[in-house]
């Protein structure tokens, strides 16, 4: 993020909350579903508030620090994350649901693939899932992910690669979204 420097947590925690509450809440909503979003956001900021004097600007931005805490909070809700992922798969009609059997084949197969992608994300080891989702949902750089999770730069790269390989495998070794996009132009 560029522009104005962030408020310092120890000096202006309210400023930090104003700036990042909505974004952290969105991250919580994506990872655990809308019902848990407020919980994740509140727990993240309360935890951050308790730690606010330990925030060290030399180690990374306030935003990175908050995503690290939020990811830890999400980790305490392991089961909800699978539920959220199943729910997202159903945002389009499920391929197995009888009332949808008459839909066109291509559409059905896209929905099925959504379900498989969700299941594959849910099945990732937590360390890989955290890295993948900090990159995909929070747009953190590898260095920022390393700082947020307290792991090395090299570990970020290797976890991300392993996560991608697993997803590719789970989806049959193809890139189904790409294929579908091409089909439907």
């Amino acid at each position, binding site marked *: 993020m560029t522009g104005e420097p962030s408020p310092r947590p120890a000096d202006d*925690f*309210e400023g930090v*909350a*104003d700036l990042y*509450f*909505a974004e952290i*809440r*969105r991250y919580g*909503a*994506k990872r655990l579903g*809308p019902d848990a*979003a*407020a*919980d994740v*956001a*509140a*727990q993240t*900021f*309360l935890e951050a*508030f*308790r730690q606010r*004097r*330990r925030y060290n600007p030399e180690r990374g931005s306030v935003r990175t620090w908050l995503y690290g805490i939020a990811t*830890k909070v999400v*980790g305490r809700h392991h089961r909800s994350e699978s539920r959220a992922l199943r729910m*997202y798969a159903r*945002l389009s009609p499920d391929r197995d649901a009888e009332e949808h059997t008459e839909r066109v084949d291509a559409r059905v197969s896209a929905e099925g693939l*959504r379900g498989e*992608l*969700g299941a594959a*994300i849910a099945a990732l080891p937590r*360390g890989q899932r955290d890295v*993948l*989702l900090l*990159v*995909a*949902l929070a747009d953190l750089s590898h260095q920022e992910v390393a700082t947020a*999770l*307290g*792991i090395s730069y090299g570990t970020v790269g290797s976890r*991300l690669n392993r*996560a*991608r390989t697993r*997803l*590719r495998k789970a989806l049959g070794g193809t*890139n189904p*979204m*790409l294929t579908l*996009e091409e089909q439907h132009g």
Partner: protein
Amino acid sequence: MDEVQMVREYYPEPAAAPAGEVGRLKALLAEPPRRSRPRLGWGLGGLVVVGAAATVAVTLVGGNTPVPGPVNLNGTGTVLAAAAKAEQQPMGRYWYSREVAGQSYIMRPKTGTYAVTGALGEMFSWSDVRPGAGGQVSSRDLPTRPLTERDAAQWRRAGSPSSFRVWSNDHYTTFTTKATSWQTGGIAPENTRFLDGRSVEDIQRLPTDQAKLTEMFLTHPRLKSKDPVQRIWAEKVQRRVTIDGKLAAVGGFLRNAPVQPKVRAGLMRALAAQPGIHEIGRATDPLGRAGVALASDDRAVTNADEYGVPKAELGTYRYRSVVIFDERTGAVLSSQDELTKPGGPYAEMKPGFVTYYAATLKAGWTDAKPQPPAGLPFD
């Protein structure tokens, strides 16, 4: 498009937060925490205890005795008797208190495991009970030190290190043997807040009746709130769900707040009558002072295997919350968390080991404006 982009598009964009959520969060953050450590410096926190009995403490503090666990005689009535004494104490214009509080951390050098008290801070605070008058809080960090004389011996065997790298919740931190100077903040009346956001004036208007105090302090409406921000604050920050948390929160209030003598007595009776809180009789506080104690039922804590958590910190232990009162005055000598079943980070410790404490050095009512002391405690 790669897998990362696929994943990005898999997640639907969530609805925006309802209006007011961040505002309520900020309002809660303005309240004092359950454990007001001096280093946090928000709001008045502080201590307690009255008069001459408490001043004796400082000379006993040197860690010359192992921290004893409570003595489990039949304690029935001991805290109630102290409450009757509390009721008769005189009050004055200012409430002041000086306390030390710290967390136990385990050092595991090859020469032998020992415990230190880190995040150790001292706080001096006073409040003026006249309407609108406010108060002041001063705090400083104290040198990290071995918890008991036995720990001090192991510390010397390890070469008397002056810095201590320890695991704290979720990261490594390093404590030193340096003290900081007092930081004093004048506190406007509207910012002088105690448990649940009570002002000095609110506290002067509290009822003395045990049942009413139970409803106000031990049956927390926020716990039933549908608003997650309110609920989480009560649960996670004030720890007001579990019985140990209730005891600790009210014990802290009795240490910190300008509570009038009859209200203090009422709160002590309310605590003693709570299911899950027991009078355990005579006990010795972390500074070596004798008193009478309330203890909560114990509770398990598990340190889960998350990334980065050192192996030695993993596992389950049980602890209870204890509040020790001066039986002559009803003042709180200390609040602490005590190990009841070793395990996890405290696997090498014995039951009764103090994992956290806040102890009053001196406190009481006075008519003269209080001043923070110059010398360090423990010297």
